[in-house]
């Protein structure tokens, strides 16, 4: 399946770019991610637990970053093997664009599943992949600019801009 969408993030392009290359950010943003180690140059090793329809599995696999065109675009690709559950793989072409209030993140996602996941979950895989992508980029948005919740807003002084945990780390 394929889908494309975009998100506006209240942070400058350098910050968004750096977040995209951070294993901590990726770990926090990939839904169901248990472990994420490695580096942008050599790729990341990941363990992700996910449930697709009736199939719940632990996926072990690699995440690689390619087509790096700093700070404009890159490709995130992942492939996970879930043992008897089959495999899932996907890629996202990400492009960053300056906008008035920050950065617009465009993404085009392609996802594929195989084995038991395809055999049992094909009817729901499109919805699942969309949900995964939405969650990832929502998590990413939150990580970079901070959640838009009341309690979060009360934590900091009113005159200071809200910061996500990634921004707090890097600023």
């Amino acid at each position: 399946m394929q889908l494309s969408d975009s998100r506006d993030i209240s942070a400058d392009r350098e910050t968004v770019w750096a977040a995209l290359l951070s294993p901590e950010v990726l770990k926090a943003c990939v839904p169901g991610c248990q472990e994420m180690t490695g580096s942008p140059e050599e790729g990341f090793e990941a363990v992700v637990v996910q449930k697709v329809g009736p199939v719940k599995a632990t996926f072990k696999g690699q995440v690689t970053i390619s087509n790096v065109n700093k700070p404009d675009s890159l490709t995130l690709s992942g492939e996970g093997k879930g043992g008897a559950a089959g495999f899932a793989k996907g890629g996202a072409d990400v492009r960053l664009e300056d906008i008035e209030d920050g950065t617009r993140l465009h993404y085009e996602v392609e996802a594929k599943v195989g084995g038991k996941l395809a055999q049992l979950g094909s009817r729901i895989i499109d919805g699942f992949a969309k949900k995964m992508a939405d969650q990832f980029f929502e998590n990413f948005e939150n990580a970079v600019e901070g959640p838009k919740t009341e309690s979060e807003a009360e934590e900091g002084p009113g005159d200071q801009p809200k910061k996500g945990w990634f921004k707090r780390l890097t600023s």
Partner: protein
Amino acid sequence: MPKDGIGASTKRREDIRFLTGKGRYTDDINLNGQLYVHFLRADVAHATLNAVDTASAQDMQGVVRIFTAKDFEAVGGLPCGWQVTDKHGNPMQEPKHPIMAEGKIRHVGEIIAAVVADSLEEARDAAEAIVVDYDELPAVIDMKAACADGAPKVHDDLTSNLCYDWGFVEENKAAVDEAFEKAAHVTTLELVNNRLVANPMEPRVAVGDYAPHDDSSTLYTTSQNPHVIRLLMGAFVLGIPEHKLRVVAPDVGGGFGTKIFHYAEEAFCTFAAKQIKRPVKWTSSRSEAFMSDAHGRDHVSKIQIALDADNNFTALRTDTYANMGAYLSTFAPSVPTWLHGVLMAGNYRTPLIYVNVKAVFTNTVPVDAYRGAGRPEATYQLERCIDKCARELGVDPAELRRQNFITPDQFPYATPVAVEYDTGNYHATLDKALELADVTGFDARAAESKKNGKLRGLGIANYIEACGIAPSNLVGQLGARAGLYESATVRVNATGGIVVMTGSHSHGQGHETTFPQVIADMIGIDASQVEIVHGDTANTPMGMGTYGSRSLAVGGSAMVRAAEKVINKAKKIAAHLMEASEGDIELKDGQFTVSGTDKSVAWGDVTLAAYVPHNYPLDQIEPGLEETAFYDPANFTYPSGTYICEVEVDEGTGKVEVLNFTAADDFGNVVNPMIVEGQVHGGVGQGIGQAMLENCAYDADGQLLSASYMDYAMPRASDLPMITVDHSCQTPCTHNPLGVKGCGEAGAIGSPPALVNAVLDALNRNGHAVDHIDMPLSPSRVWTAMNQ
């Protein structure tokens, strides 16, 4: 005449054990010291297989041994039982079919490794620890794309993905093309015969056993033909002589063709049991069945009919792509050719026919015979195209068919596609079906439906079958690598009871009930005195098994021939006992009498004399009463019939409801009408399943998408109408002793076109000019067709 002889609707004696949980299926067999195998199967469709690392799995708890392709280097591949010769006179391309993937993965579900462990759970756990190193390759799924230049090749050692390009009859092609040029009208239709998964209720199971004391192997397996498995596996795969190999197929819970074939799992369990010297058992899960049982159908066809100005069919030509899947399953090449092309004449006098079939390898599960096997594909094309033709010409579809029927006085009728129909009366079944379906009352019913906002339609289809494929010397010329006879031993015991050992296998057909009815009728004893033994190579003579609606026509005939030998010998004994001439002895109602006298001796007295030969002509005949016969038919049998289906279509949703179904069949003589009706019910149920619900789907990468009952829709009771079955139109087969033709597949052959014709009739009657909708006719497809 015994009350349960030929013609009696005797209840099925085997049902008592099936319905009370006393059946003995292969999975019920558990042997001392038995191990369990779990197969690691490919989850990609096409890949280079670099390495299979079993090191860490090997050390896991309970693991006894892990097998990979390396263990099978000295073992043959699974053989193909039919070699088709292409239109240029060359043999088909025949790739090796290994037990496990060798160097390359060619379909999802192919076996990569096998873990044998103390328990199934341990075997499954260990399989997860096997590391498979592979590089995925582009897959070929679509048949036409697979035939294009530069398409990825499923088998690198073949010249292309084309198994064969078959032309039949090639010499007729020019004349056929010429007839099309002269035609007053030509109807063309392109259609898909959807890929199906057979889904017998019992999944496949294999238990391999080895006896070191005499170096013999035993395989218990869910097979329709244990002797064929013994021959193929013993001679071609494992190199075990038949006297050291026993194959047992006990109670089998449905086959529908998919249990004819010799599968890798059978060879594996037999091989592994000998290697490990412990029994090895495999029980297929339903998920495994979807990706390892041979699939059915999957043809893409273009058919054209040419007519003269008086609406007589003058010529027919078809182009078909037939999917073979990744490997050639046991009888796969024969299905689109000798079981399909030779049936393209149908019930009609069309003088010129040319059939082209391209069999194609793709990265999918192998495809082979499924209930009807080739004949449903032929019938579907022909009957759909004739229906379209009638609509184009504005004539009654029933009358267009009737006008072109082979007439009763033309039998035996030689078709232009090589077969000779011995007998039939197509007018009779058409008239019977029209009457039973109350076609004259249709308009009133359609008006009623319209009031309720529903579109009503009526569809007709005729079919002809070729059953009991034979004779062996002919099929040998056509490429069969097997004989197609059947055998039976009739053993009469001292006290008069009879055991019939038959090569036919029963897995739902009811042989244990019908075969005794025939013997009871011949001898005049109660059918309960007759027991049927089948399914074990150790105690039945060589048999070719059950498929192609052949059991009664071929296996039953062998039994009759053996029983005739028994009766002839018994008459000699009776003549001696009554001091009469053998020629004067008559057998009736279990009594031997001397004609014209009141002298008689009972069946039991004669059988006792045969085994206690105190007063016995030992100088003239041997003691004992047991005879074996092999029967090789002179021709196919040709059941035929007319099916009529009535449907309502919901215009708003596209949902189709099957309201009535009428089947008027000519099966020749009928032994047990109730069982025949049951066979028709089951066949029609599967045909409606194909037409309405079932579809095996792959994505473009070769992932099997419909691999559970969540996505593969099996027909349920509520999807089926009441089915009116009639078999009163009987033209007995002229060349077998019972005059029977076979009834097992008819329902699945005639019903899909009848149903699709009915839906298109409903649409076209109500202002939706739709030429065709491919099966299954889901609400979505029907609605889309109406609203395009």
